[in-house]
């Protein structure tokens, strides 16, 4: 032990860093901040470190070539010893990092940590969120499978809508006129060099600010932040009732970081790596591209925005969102910190989580996507065909042959793009059914040109049978009167 002491003294006589490191580690923090609520920032940093290590390990094998990347990932999954596990760690680490950054952000917002004097810490945090999402998106591209290829197409299509610079931006994004080798190369450079460097720089600035300004004190209802008095109050809080960060406050951080690493390792081990899915060959169009989990909300949003409003919302929406995040510490830089006295803050979080949560859930389910193989792959339930006339059964065949099933469910099978047709006869009369089929409308294509009169008659006859046993189909009362008494 004495030798270790002497060697470290020898180094410190030269570096002269020991005293400042010790002072930094032992800096006093308010007693109540040694809390399980204060562990997310350090956990995000731990996961970032894991991403750096696993990322470097993957770079030993990865080939950033559009022609080779996919095969390289297959080799990593199948041939390289533990390659699948390193990929899985990096993939799950990415999901955990985004999740923890988001939780950290919600926590500091609800605890009023963005208020004076920590405005800049918040602003840098917003950049860290953007960089983290940038890493998640570019990482998904580096997986270079079908989802990555068409995901780039979606990104380019969104970028192209920006007025004036749209087309130039698309070419800069893709590195050329099409999604190809140059595209992967630049996303590799961004994912491996540019954004990680920015992350390291901004994480350092973020941590320096936390050390210089002190960790946010535990918010007490009624303890008001004022620019004139806060610094003095904080100084008293840390010196009168403070504890040294190491060893008194750091324990929960270490335990939580360890638990997160274990959780990532467990997910990686039990669920394995993400993809790659089908090869990035654009001529293989039998695919239903899906983004990764944290971009599913955007995928859902893009299907629900009305077509005419989509472009303005896509361009203006993110700008407004960022403006709000940047302006927040300046708009509400003073006042109550405790979430117990900030109902609007709590409601905002509930609303935002509700919106993004609902969109993500819809993104997992994608009811707006036609089921491209339902017409040939999913049968009509037997009970809907039993005891039917030949004409009605012919109509069921038309229903299948014309791909109606891709968008309309029957007995829980088929697409959900349009309404389920299990009881459609109760909702629409015969004439209404004919009109809807021939003219379309309400987001349905018109089938007038694609159905012969005989096919239409058969299809509508089949649909008129789609009603519950005890409930009569809808009828047009005036037509009944005409049939009975003549015109």
């Amino acid at each position, binding site marked *: 032990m004495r030798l270790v002491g002497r060697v470290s003294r020898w180094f410190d006589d030269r570096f002269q860093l020991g005293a400042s490191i010790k002072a930094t580690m032992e800096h006093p923090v308010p007693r109540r901040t040694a809390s399980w609520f204060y562990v997310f920032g350090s956990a995000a940093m731990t996961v970032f470190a894991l991403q750096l290590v696993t990322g470097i390990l993957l770079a030993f094998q990865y080939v950033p070539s*559009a022609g080779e990347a996919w095969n390289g990932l297959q080799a990593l999954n199948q041939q390289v010893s533990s390659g699948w596990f390193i990929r899985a760690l990096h993939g799950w680490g990415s999901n955990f990092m985004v999740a923890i950054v988001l939780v950290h952000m919600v926590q500091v917002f609800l605890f009023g940590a963005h208020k004076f004097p920590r405005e800049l810490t918040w602003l840098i945090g917003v950049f860290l969120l953007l960089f983290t999402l940038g890493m998640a998106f570019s990482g998904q591209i580096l997986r270079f499978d079908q989802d990555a290829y068409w995901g780039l197409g979606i990104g380019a299509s969104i970028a192209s809508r920006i007025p004036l610079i749209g087309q130039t931006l698309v070419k800069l994004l893709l590195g050329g006129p099409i999604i190809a080798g140059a595209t992967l190369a630049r996303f590799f450079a961004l994912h491996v060099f540019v954004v990680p460097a920015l992350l390291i720089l901004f994480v350092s600035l973020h941590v320096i600010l936390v050390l210089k300004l002190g960790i946010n004190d535990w918010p007490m209802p009624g303890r008001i932040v004022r620019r004139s008095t806060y610094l003095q109050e904080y100084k008293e809080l840390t010196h009168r009732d403070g504890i040294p960060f190491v060893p008194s406050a750091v324990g929960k951080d270490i335990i939580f970081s360890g638990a997160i690493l274990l959780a990532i390792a467990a997910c990686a081990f039990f669920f394995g790596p993400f993809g790659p899915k089908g090869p990035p060959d654009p*001529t293989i169009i039998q695919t239903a591209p899906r983004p990764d989990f944290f971009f599913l909300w955007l995928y859902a949003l893009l299907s629900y925005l009305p077509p005419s409003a989509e472009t303005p919302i896509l361009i203006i929406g993110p700008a407004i969102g960022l403006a709000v995040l940047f302006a927040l510490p300046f708009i509400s830089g003073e006042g109550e910190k405790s979430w117990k006295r900030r109902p609007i803050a709590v409601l905002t979080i509930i609303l935002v989580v509700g919106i993004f949560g609902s969109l993500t859930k819809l993104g997992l389910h994608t009811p707006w996507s036609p089921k491209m193989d339902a017409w040939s792959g999913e049968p009509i339930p037997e009970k809907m065909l039993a005891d039917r006339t030949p004409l009605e059964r012919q109509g069921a065949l038309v229903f299948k042959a014309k791909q109606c099933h891709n968008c309309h469910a029957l007995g829980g099978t088929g697409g959900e793009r349009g309404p389920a047709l299990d009881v459609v006869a109760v909702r629409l009369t015969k004439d209404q059914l004919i009109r809807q089929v021939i003219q379309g409308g309400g987001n349905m*294509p018109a089938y007038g040109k694609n159905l012969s009169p005989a096919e239409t008659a058969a299809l509508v006859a089949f649909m008129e049978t789609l009603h519950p046993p005890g409930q009569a189909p809808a009828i047009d009362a005036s037509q009944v009167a005409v049939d009975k008494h003549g015109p």
Partner: protein
Amino acid sequence: MADPISRRSALARIGLIFNGVVAAVLAVPVVKYLKSPTRKPAKADDWISLGPLSQFPVGETRMAAFRNPVVNPSDGKTADIPCWVRRVDERKFQVFAINCAHLGCPVRWFAQSNLFLCPCHGGAYYADGSRASGPPERGLFEYVYRIEGNELWIQAQEMPTPGPTAYNDGKRHLKCV
């Protein structure tokens, strides 16, 4: 004799200006390099053959693929671009881009219902490429074609995107349906 300190600070200032000039000179090739993807490639106006006309029966819509004229050795399969060829009659064709006019996903042709359907957000187009339903604001993108030597030729160089200036003026390589 001048004050040595101010002389030294003057030297430092000159040094900074000197470095600024060097940086500006170096910036020219760097900016050119970064902007290079936005330049129009030399082969952009080349015609590309989609193969003999006999591959495309009258009244049907078939998939064809071409090697993008602007290629890189590392492109692999990504430079093989598919498209939909509709032969209206002996001499009349329509060649549609594979990319949905909403967000670029690959549309699929369903010959039975005469519709193009997009697997992403459910955009639908009629056989002539016009918009049928769903989120796209316009019809499918169409390539300019010509018939020569019993082969179908198109002009194509870039991925079509729905941006405001794209391909709508008839002079570009794709036109609006």
